[in-house]
């Protein structure tokens, strides 16, 4: 009989630990001289870093000025690629797409360095993305990016009081709603994590909703990962970790500023093991949230619905649809036959589910050529019908961003891999704006943005 893989990993690490032995203090001191050189290489001094940034900024100006003005559609297309209104063509930064139709926005250390981009939405000056950025040795800070055209991005000026906090803090999701925009995430104080909410009128200036312990805190760890305009105004979803399990959790607000937590009903949000919501959208009977829940046979994909965002029901489990092999739904949108959810199948492949009304669901048949060796993170309606994004999970690859498209939500195609564009990346969120598709994510170390034309 096979021993649980987790026990085997534990044994492997115990063996390594014994073979390795601890690092003795004397070894550290003896190491010191040689390390001084290494350390200087590893972490440039502030003055060197500043010179790099200045040099990069100067280089960027020179390159931008010398680039030929290429528009995706080429030639005399006077309509902006991403702008929904007439753009200033003379200042629209553009570059040529690859054969896949997708391009990766050129890396800019000052904008994307050390960051991970978690979510993107239409709003503010055009587009707004949120995520977190690594701080020098002190955890992470929440961060917001804005763009007027999908190609040129700026980082909203850091404000410790708004974006910073004890140790790790980050934004997970953003939506148009409330006073203009609402972002959600979590902070990790020393012993217990709390959910967090930010709001903005214009995407450029942000405020943090006060962390009320009774609403966003509690004895366990709260994580808010999805937010949408819907229900009484704005609905946010996530989970609360308590002990060795977790319950799904929902927060609601009329205006995005004053929040309430929906009471935790054990039969709806909880149960033995791990239950959590990862994404939410307005649709179906009112609001639909997706995630994963513990079943007798294992972890299954799960859907919750609500008419008003305040009273929730869980869609009954069906092995044939939601499985028990470690499935998760990570994204959901209105589209296709009604609603489309995406995630993973627990066995190294992506998975798609569809629903007419949010209450009954079907799983799109497995197609190894389309879904195999991959995971889907996000889906959005637009382009040919729907666009989903994620990353490569195959044995032969060390990762890479992936894009799928579908006309009806049921039949899907995978955009051909293009190492020069997608290599090493991971897309976490996608949106469609005007004639363009914008996906955000990262490469494990830095933030990244990809763009394509919808052709519509």
């Amino acid at each position, binding site marked *: 009989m096979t021993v649980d893989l987790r026990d085997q990993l534990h044994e492997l690490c115990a063996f390594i630990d014994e073979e390795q032995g601890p690092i003795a203090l004397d070894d550290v001191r003896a190491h010191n001289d040689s390390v001084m050189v290494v350390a200087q290489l590893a972490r440039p001094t502030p003055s060197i870093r500043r010179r790099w940034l200045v040099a990069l900024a100067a280089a960027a100006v020179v390159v931008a000025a010398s680039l030929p003005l290429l528009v995706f559609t080429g030639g005399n297309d006077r309509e902006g690629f991403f702008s929904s209104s007439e753009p200033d063509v003379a200042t629209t930064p553009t570059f040529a797409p690859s054969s896949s139709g997708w391009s990766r926005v050129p890396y800019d250390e000052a904008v994307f360095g050390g960051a991970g981009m978690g979510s993107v939405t239409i709003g503010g000056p055009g587009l707004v993305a949120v995520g977190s950025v690594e701080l020098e040795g002190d955890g992470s800070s929440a961060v917001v990016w804005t763009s007027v055209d999908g190609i040129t991005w700026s980082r909203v000026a850091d404000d410790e009081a708004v974006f910073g906090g004890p140790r790790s803090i980050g934004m997970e999701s953003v939506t148009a709603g409330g006073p203009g925009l609402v972002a959600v995430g979590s902070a990790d104080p020393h012993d217990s994590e709390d959910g967090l909410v930010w709001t903005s009128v214009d995407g450029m200036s942000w405020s943090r909703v006060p962390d009320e312990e009774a609403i966003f805190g509690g004895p366990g760890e709260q994580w808010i*990962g999805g937010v949408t305009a819907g229900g009484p105004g704005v609905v946010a979803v996530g989970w609360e970790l308590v002990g060795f399990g977790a319950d799904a959790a929902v927060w609601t607000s009329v205006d995005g500023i004053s929040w309430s937590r929906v009471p935790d009903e054990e039969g709806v949000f909880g149960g033995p093991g791990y239950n959590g919501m990862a994404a939410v959208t307005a649709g179906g009977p009112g609001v639909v949230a997706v995630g994963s829940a513990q079943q007798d046979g294992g972890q299954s994909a799960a859907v919750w619905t609500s008419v008003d965002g305040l009273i929730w029901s869980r869609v009954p489990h069906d092995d044939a649809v939601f499985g028990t092999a470690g499935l998760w739904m990570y994204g959901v949108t209105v589209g296709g036959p009604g609603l489309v959810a995406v995630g993973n199948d627990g066995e*190294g492949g992506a998975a798609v589910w569809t629903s007419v009304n949010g209450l009954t669901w079907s799983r799109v048949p497995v197609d190894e050529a389309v879904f195999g060796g991959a995971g889907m993170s996000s889906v959005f309606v637009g382009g040919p019908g729907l666009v989903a994004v994620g990353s490569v999970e195959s044995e032969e690859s060390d990762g890479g961003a992936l894009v799928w498209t579908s006309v009806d939500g049921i039949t899907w195609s995978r955009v051909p891999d293009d190492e020069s564009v997608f290599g090493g990346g991971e897309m976490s969120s996608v949106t469609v704006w005007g004639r363009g598709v914008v996906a955000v994510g990262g490469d494990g170390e830095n933030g990244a943005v990809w763009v394509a034309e919808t052709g519509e």
Partner: protein
Amino acid sequence: MLTEETATERFSAFVADHEARLRHALTARFGPETGKDAAADALAYGWEHWERVESMENPVGYLYTVGRDRGRRMSQRRPPLFPAVPVERAPWVEPGLARAVADLPERQRTVVLLLHGYDWTQSEVAEMLHISKATVQRHGERALARLRRKLGVDR
């Protein structure tokens, strides 16, 4: 002199408390050999800059980034080497486990070993790697699924 002794004592206490944590994180990422060397380098750097490092809110997190940069240079992006658990020690460990772990993408390997090999919580992994708990969850699940598929096991 008293200050120097006190700093030495504080650094010694720091090493006693956090050495294993730092070594485990870098071992999960780079393998036992490079991981331990990178951890030793990071601690040495911490000792050299102890006054600044000890004033940080999360010194072990900072030293992880130092060790990570050092590990990258040492490994030159070569896949890590993990030792097979001897059969006489644990015959129930799949013989291909070490190789399958080494073949995982870097982030998946780091997450799955910290979660299930070294018994860190999701929050601890998220904090050390500066990623969200959702990402930790995702990488952990994907890594387990990939290992199960590769080893042909169902648990």
